């Protein structure tokens, strides 16, 4: 009997969606708009985070080595630095590599290349390029590197990354803060809009709810079709959002790549990698709001 009742409730629910097709379309459209807005905010947040991370990624410390230093000593120093906890990567650039890189970087500048030829030989020094694990601990790393006393070190380039880092961190913090604030407002608006849409759907059915009660339908029997409809609306809303959002991302991606040249921003893979987390959570939240709104609205109109 429970299975029979459940199947009937399911049938009524789907019948109701079909027979009130325009109301259903409007409700689903509102859900799609709300979800699209939330996802758009995720895109903005991800882009800003990726941009900030990319800039951080470019920050490194360079130790210049004396040209006459033996490679074995250089490798020993490299190994010593690599063993430090805060160091992510140490890259050795030999004198010849440094020259190749220099030529490559200035290949379009004949005056510099001419000057290099006039100097003769290789005036560049070998170096160790050090990337930190966490750029926020930049000062600690510099302190550690400064403590290393090695005769082969010619000079240390610690530059004024500190100021850049402070600026990046400030921007990053502001972006996060603004993102959370704007997202919260939009999520709240989306919640209220969806909640209200479901209530309107049930308001239009208030007469029917009264009739159902008069012929002896239990509260469960009256509420269940609306609860199922709510979940179906949320499910269709998510599917429709996916169908619209992924083509939108595909269109957006080349523009992002063109705008952020040199930065590794792939918004499609971000959504694909976090698919279950993002869309699963959105389905859950949308369903919960719809179910919550349905329970309140049906309860209100079924007091007969």
């Amino acid at each position, binding site marked *: 009997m429970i299975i029979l009742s459940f199947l009937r409730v399911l049938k009524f629910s789907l019948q109701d969606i079909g*027979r009130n097709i325009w109301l259903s379309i409007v409700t689903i459209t509102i859900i799609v708009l709300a979800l699209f807005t939330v996802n758009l905010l995720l895109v903005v947040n991800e882009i800003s985070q990726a941009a900030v991370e990319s800039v951080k990624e470019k920050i490194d410390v360079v130790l210049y080595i004396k040209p006459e230093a033996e490679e074995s000593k250089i490798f020993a120093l490299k190994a010593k630095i690599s063993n430090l906890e805060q160091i992510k990567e140490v890259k050795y650039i030999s004198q010849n590599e440094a020259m190749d890189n220099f030529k490559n970087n200035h290949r379009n500048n004949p005056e510099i290349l001419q000057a290099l030829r006039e100097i003769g030989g290789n005036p560049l020094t070998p170096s160790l390029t050090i990337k930190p694990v966490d750029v926020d601990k930049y000062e600690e790393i510099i302190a550690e590197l400064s403590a290393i006393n090695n005769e082969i070190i010619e000079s240390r380039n610690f530059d004024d990354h500190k100021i850049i880092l402070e600026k990046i961190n400030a921007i990053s913090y502001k972006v996060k803060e603004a993102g959370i604030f704007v997202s919260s407002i939009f999520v709240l608006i989306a919640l209220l809009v969806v909640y209200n849409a479901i209530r309107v759907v049930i308001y239009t059915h208030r007469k029917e709810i009264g*009739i*159902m009660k*008069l*012929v*002896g*339908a239990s*509260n469960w029997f009256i509420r269940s079709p609306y609860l199922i409809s709510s979940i179906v609306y949320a499910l269709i809303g998510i599917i429709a959002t996916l169908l619209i959002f992924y083509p939108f991302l595909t269109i957006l991606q080349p523009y992002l790549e063109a705008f952020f040249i040199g930065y590794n921003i792939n918004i499609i893979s971000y959504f694909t990698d976090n698919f279950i987390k993002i869309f699963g959570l959105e389905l859950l939240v949308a369903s919960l709001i719809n179910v919550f709104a349905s329970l309140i609205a049906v309860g209100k109109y079924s007091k007969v």
Partner: protein
Amino acid sequence: MIKLFNISKFYKPDIKALNMVNLHIKPGEFVSIVGQSGTGKTTIVKTLIGEEKVDQGKVIVGGWDITNIGQREIPILRRQIGVIFQDFKLLPKKTLLENVSFALQVCGQTSKKINYIVPQVMKIVGLEDKVHRYPQEISGGEQQRVAIARSLVHRPKILLADEPTGNLDSINAEEIIELLLKINKFGTTVVLVTHNRDIVNKLKKRVITIENGIIVGDQAVGKYIL
């Protein structure tokens, strides 16, 4: 079948819809409750289906004391009483067949039983050819007949008809009354709430007259006296 002991119902601020009403309706009776609008007729119907609770007195329907009926028990009560209203109260998005079947589906009847009972009641009310139509596609008289069919599917011992002819022309109204008499002949207690003088006078059945929430007349073969 129906017993009301000194029931009173008050609405804020100081309206006495029913005032110390005593009433006893026996099984198989056909009783008309008459009175002008706002005299408390519909309040009696609402009390009998658990929609309103009385402030004083005791209400017994079919041996069941429903004076303080709980929310969970109301659906069970309503499955035992047939009710029809002036505005038919049909579900507009369901066909006539679905409207009538719905009353059985809500209490978990099997499809086999529904498919057996529903065509029978649709035949009784003479709408067996229009079962797949929607309420808005048929006349008011036919809609009321569907409502009667729906009220009959549970084979109720009591049928409450609250102004069932209020929205109908005289010919359709007479057809509905004929149908109610036919149902009464099968043994169902019928309580007809109306202010239609002609219908009551033609019936020559028991008439209870209410005025300002008080029973002012109760005649075994009565007339509309107000």
